[in-house]
């Protein structure tokens, strides 16, 4: 009686339920990033300033994609109950993500000089990278939580939804960058 939903057999325990919930959430977030990308074209067309730091943009994109690979390796490891490999991979994901955020910070520092938020391209640039960086940050917090949960021994090869959910979200954040990167850096 007292712990209503928690004792209940089919709510909160079904994996397909959680998966579908996550996919609905990802569908919802897709509309946010869709709106972001459309706004860029609506306001600026395909204009792009010359002062974008192209090498840095490429490097942080690669770093972020590498982090997705590490996250995937982490998920596979936990599915084989390899706790050590799981930890190493998820912690590398977090490190790569921090490198990505430092890179974005560096970009912002340079962008302030050439196209500040009070210019048209700056508005787009800071908003897109800012909203994306916010998602990276939330993903990192989630990754830290699953490392903690993993070290408490709460995942094994039969039950690792926490890892699966967070890693799926992490892939989504990376895929979003795969669309944002060309929209900001390559289109001309």
């Amino acid at each position, binding site marked *: 009686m007292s712990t*209503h939903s928690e004792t209940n057999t089919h709510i909160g325990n079904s994996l397909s*339920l959680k998966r579908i919930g996550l996919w609905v959430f990802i569908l*919802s977030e897709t509309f946010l990033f869709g709106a972001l990308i459309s706004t860029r074209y609506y306001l600026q067309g395909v204009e792009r300033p010359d002062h974008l730091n192209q090498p840095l943009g490429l490097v942080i994109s690669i770093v972020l994609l590498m982090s997705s690979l590490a996250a995937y390796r982490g998920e596979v490891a936990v599915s084989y109950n390899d706790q050590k490999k799981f930890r190493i991979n998820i912690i590398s994901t977090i490190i790569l993500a921090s490198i990505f955020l430092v890179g974005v910070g560096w970009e912002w520092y340079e962008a302030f000089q050439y196209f500040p938020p009070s*210019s*048209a391209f700056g*508005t787009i640039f800071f908003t897109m990278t800012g909203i994306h960086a916010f998602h990276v940050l939330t993903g990192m917090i989630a990754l830290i939580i699953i490392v903690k*949960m993993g070290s408490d021994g709460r995942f094994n090869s039969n039950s690792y939804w926490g890892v699966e959910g967070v890693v799926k979200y992490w892939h989504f954040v990376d895929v979003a960058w795969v669309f944002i990167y060309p929209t900001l850096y390559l289109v001309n």
Partner: protein
Amino acid sequence: MTQLKFLWPITRGLIGAIIGLLVGLGVGLSVSSLTGNPATEINISFSYVFALLGWLLGVGVWNSWIREWIGIKPSYFEAKNWQRYFGFSMDHKVIGVQYLVTFVILFLLGGFFALLMRIELADSGEGLLGPNYYNTIMSLHGIIMVAVAVAAIIGGLSNYVLPLMIGAEDVAFPRINALSFWIIPPVAILLILTPLFGGFDSGWTAYPPLSVTNADGQLLFLFAFLTFGLSSILGGLNFLTTTICLRAPGMTWGRLPIFVWSIVAASIISVTATQVVAFGLLMVILDRVAGMVFFDAGLGGKPLLYEHVFWFYSHPAVYIMILPAFGALLEMVSHFSRKPLFGYKLVVASFLSITALSFLVWAHHLFTSGMDEFLHIPFMAITELISVPTGVVFLSALGTIWRGKLWLVTPMLFVVGTVFNFLIGGLTGIFLADVATDIHLQDTYFVVAHFHYTMMGGEIFMLFGAIYYWFPKMTGRLYNETLGRLHFITMFLTYNALFITMFIVGTNGMNRRVWTYPENLQDGNILIGVFSLLLGLSFIPFVYNMVASWARGTVSGNNPWGATTLEWATDSPPPEENFAHPPKVDEGPYTYGQSGRKETQATPI
């Protein structure tokens, strides 16, 4: 002290909010001293965001959620009886009632603001509110009523009955469900505080450039709307997942009650389109707080961008409001005509095509905004096309009533009233979808009357009808039929008198969103004011009826309407786990008049 233990979640939430407010203020002060941007708005932004987080953590997120993540045992405290309504309960039935009561109160508050507007408009000169306060009150009326229309049926009624209708024990994510309700109080508080910060005179649409340059109250409004959007997304996510995953054995998609289908369609819109308006509001916030230039035409921004983004959500949003109302309408039509629903499959197809088409009509709000001319005709055509599936819904209602055995109790009276009102709302919509007439009628009271006919005459009437219909399910008691009919008759007559007069003054040139008008429109406005007051009074029997019947109405029994759908197969009010014996569904939802039908569509297993 132990009797007051049920107030702990709210107390903890308030303490959390105050701590958050102070922390946010500190962060805001340090950020504004670094950047030198206008400090007040930065302070407001940080204070609000941190206060919101503090409130949510305090009210229940920490205890029932975060503790589990970091490996501490979650602590639940479930109060008993009426005290449950004040806590972070995860029971969808409690949350449904929380939503419903909150939004009925907000509805009455919004109605009170409308009466203040009518007092100002009783005279063409300056009256009670004057130019300073009129637009703020008008905007508050708008946004509160929009929130009621979006959340009262979905958050309140469907939270209560959808899991029962599909034979589930609860919604898919009970904690998220509780969260989506407890996000609402900060929204209400923020909106009520706006007059202290100079109000906001932009209307609920908050078009820039006005919304970028006006008083700080606008920022509070933007945050309130943004937060409300979050609640709406979480709600939609829950209903979609619940319907996909938690249907009872035998409850196939073709056996879902039509109300459930309407909630599915509305939820698809609310999880997707809401993100887009949230981004629109965020752009205005960034323009105000961070000095960005999304809408500054002088520096490369485009004000029209906001109108596109805003209506990309806000036109589909009218279907978030009206689809559940259609669902409830068809549900009741079948039960009270004692006939199977006419054209069930066609109605489902209509709901889904309304959902799809609703994403393609937004720019009809921009016919006079300076949008490219070549867009006028396609958007006019699609807007008129969407009336076809809407017509199918009407056909289904009329086909079900046709040669049915009508039982004209209060909920059914509201159904008949809604059919009448929405017909007027739909027909007057043609003039507004049509470019040529719209350019004359844009921003007049004709538009105001039109959307009140669809939203209030369609949705709010259905909200009240559905409250009467499910009242015995929620409370186990019958409402007073005489008072119910009195409520319907007074509300229906005064409502129609009021808004038909608005059509007339609108076509004569009465502009919306103004506190003054030419003197020849005086008589019409006085008439509208009188009818408004009477309409307001018509809710007295409703409130009295609900409170008194809940406390000491006649006990209703489990299925006072003899309805076939699953929610009536369990006790009224349902036990905590909804069904003492899990139900197995073995026939469609509306089997009236068919040989060998059972009392409801289910048998216990």
